[in-house]
């Protein structure tokens, strides 16, 4: 019981090649920058965009198979879709919006309305059943959209940026509710977002999509601990280096990096900005990795000062405000950056 998709399609600038498996009961979050093809992937799974090649199987039933010509049209797929801007029908009330799917699947009017009302109650909107979408707040509209997608007991729930249309104040609250409602759903769930916080808060497993390709999958902890692309590294705020390992030494593009464990071949190395120390003079003593550089942008992030160091080995450091003051850090100043060998996480590329 799961979703197995292996699909490819070209649409405008986008060239999508994705292999994706989601277990039943699992909540997979598809994370990626704008234009990576996330929405197109969801639309393809829903049958709204034709595949060029590939196969989509849900709970053992083939939804799409280009090779054999099998194609289940969107209206006969057991799916629920929450669209980014919800797309609630403006001419129908909240109740009628939720009842729409039940009605089109042939339920009698009274029964459809009864079930829709029960769902509206479940998402806390019983009082707004008669309201038109225009009269609902963003958070309320989102909950109506969720109820509308879930009321038909779909086997696959697709959510496209369900929180993106909300302002920051309501987002936290709606995210908590969303998490609760998603937890109550036993089918397969696939959620798209470009917001790493949302991804980490909701995901059982992350799938990172960049330029139409999956660049990394894993639990939120795995992905943030061992980023495999610059995009993910920047999202989770760590320094990422590509290099070739030969024992304890990594050859990078602009220098070398000494690490604690032994590795061989192409590797990735992640260094947390907290682990990067800055100095006015060439430091003496333990640190094995020292690079000269120029302080670039200096910004305050929370209770730390973040410094972009440019040089042969560009690196981001986060130091305490006291250290920054002592170093008299300013843009364009000469600094030395050092990293202890034990602070480097190395994993195969």
């Amino acid at each position, binding site marked *: 019981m799961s979703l197995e998709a292996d699909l490819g399609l070209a649409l405008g600038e986008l060239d999508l090649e994705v292999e994706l498996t989601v277990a039943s009961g699992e909540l997979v979050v598809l994370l990626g920058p704008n234009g990576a093809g996330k929405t197109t992937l969801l639309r393809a799974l829903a049958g*709204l965009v034709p595949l060029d090649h590939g196969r989509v199987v849900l709970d053992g039933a083939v939804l799409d198979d280009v090779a054999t010509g099998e194609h289940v049209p969107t209206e006969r797929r057991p799916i629920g879709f929450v*669209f980014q801007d919800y*797309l609630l029908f403006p001419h129908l009330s909240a109740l009628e919006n939720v009842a729409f799917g039940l009605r089109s699947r042939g339920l009698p009017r009274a029964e459809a309305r009864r079930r829709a009302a029960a769902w509206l109650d479940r998402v806390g909107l019983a009082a707004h059943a008669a309201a038109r979408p225009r009269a609902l707040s963003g958070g309320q509209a989102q909950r109506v959209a969720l109820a509308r997608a879930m009321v038909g007991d779909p086997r696959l729930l697709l959510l496209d940026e369900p929180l993106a249309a909300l302002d920051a104040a309501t987002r936290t609250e709606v995210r908590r509710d969303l998490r609760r409602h998603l937890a109550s759903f036993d089918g397969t769930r696939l959620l798209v977002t470009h917001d790493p916080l949302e991804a980490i808060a909701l995901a059982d497993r992350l799938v990172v999509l960049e330029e139409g390709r999956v660049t990394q999958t894993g639990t939120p902890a795995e992905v943030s601990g061992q980023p495999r692309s610059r995009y993910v590294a920047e999202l989770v705020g760590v320094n990422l280096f590509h290099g070739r390992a030969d024992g304890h030494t990594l050859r990078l593009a602009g220098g070398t990096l000494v690490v604690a464990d032994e590795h061989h071949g192409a590797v990735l190395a992640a260094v947390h900005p907290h682990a990067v120390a800055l100095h006015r003079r060439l430091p003496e003593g333990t640190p094995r990795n020292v690079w000269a550089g120029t302080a670039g942008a200096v910004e305050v992030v929370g209770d730390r000062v973040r410094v972009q160091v440019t040089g042969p080995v560009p690196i981001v450091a986060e130091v305490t405000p006291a250290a920054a003051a002592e170093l008299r850090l300013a843009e364009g100043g000469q600094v030395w950056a050092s990293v202890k060998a034990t602070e480097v996480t190395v994993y195969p590329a």
Partner: protein
Amino acid sequence: MTAGARHRRAGGGSRIPALLLVPAGLALGFLAVPLAGLLARTPWGNLGAELVTPRVLEALRLSLVCSLGAVAVSIVLGVPLAFLLARVTFPGRNLVRALTTLSMVLPPVVGGVALLLAFGRRGLVGQWLDQWFGITLPFTTAGAILAEAFVAMPFLVISTEAGLRAMDRRFEDAAATLGAGRWTILRRVTLPLIAPSLGAGVALCWARALGEFGATITFAGNLPGVTQTMPLAVYIALETDLQAAIALSLVLLVVSLAVLVALRDRWFPTA
């Protein structure tokens, strides 16, 4: 009027050269004076009596039957044509669209002649209708309906097509993910969403059909009780009974104004 519109009018109005006010005023007078003339000569005292004379009532009835018939024909045939133009890509689509709108710019009398040549008893299609089904269209009420639909349908097609092009088609996608098939989507999503355009199109189409003169008189003739609609009756009455002509004209004027008022939010959203 909203505050925004007031600002715009005040700001923009004072910015035109004073010289333009003269022709602008003349234009306004030119458009308004004939209406004033009509109202000035209206026999208000016995307007009621004028409107219930048999020939006026007959023309009124016939106008309603023909114009509503033309609207019905336009809806049944024109709305599907609008869907075809808006949603299906096919070679020569622009040509088809041009053809659709041709009867809007064609002199109605030419339309009437063309209809005669097509649907007349010896016409391209008419001869077969006559031979096979015994149907004759010219000089019948059905013929008047046909003539009015020929001229009025493009208004409905254009308005509906514009509505279809402007709507967000992702609503149809959303409906499909909710299990709705094509007919359900059409009935429960697409048509309700384009209802304003559809309504405007129907109103325009009806107004145009109601005022139709040239194509009707050419194709369907001017037979009282059969094809003599209000505009035709006005034209005839002008020579024999000026009072009746004025009364009928007034009715048409009121209908036109009503359509204008009904569509004002659509055409003049903030004015």
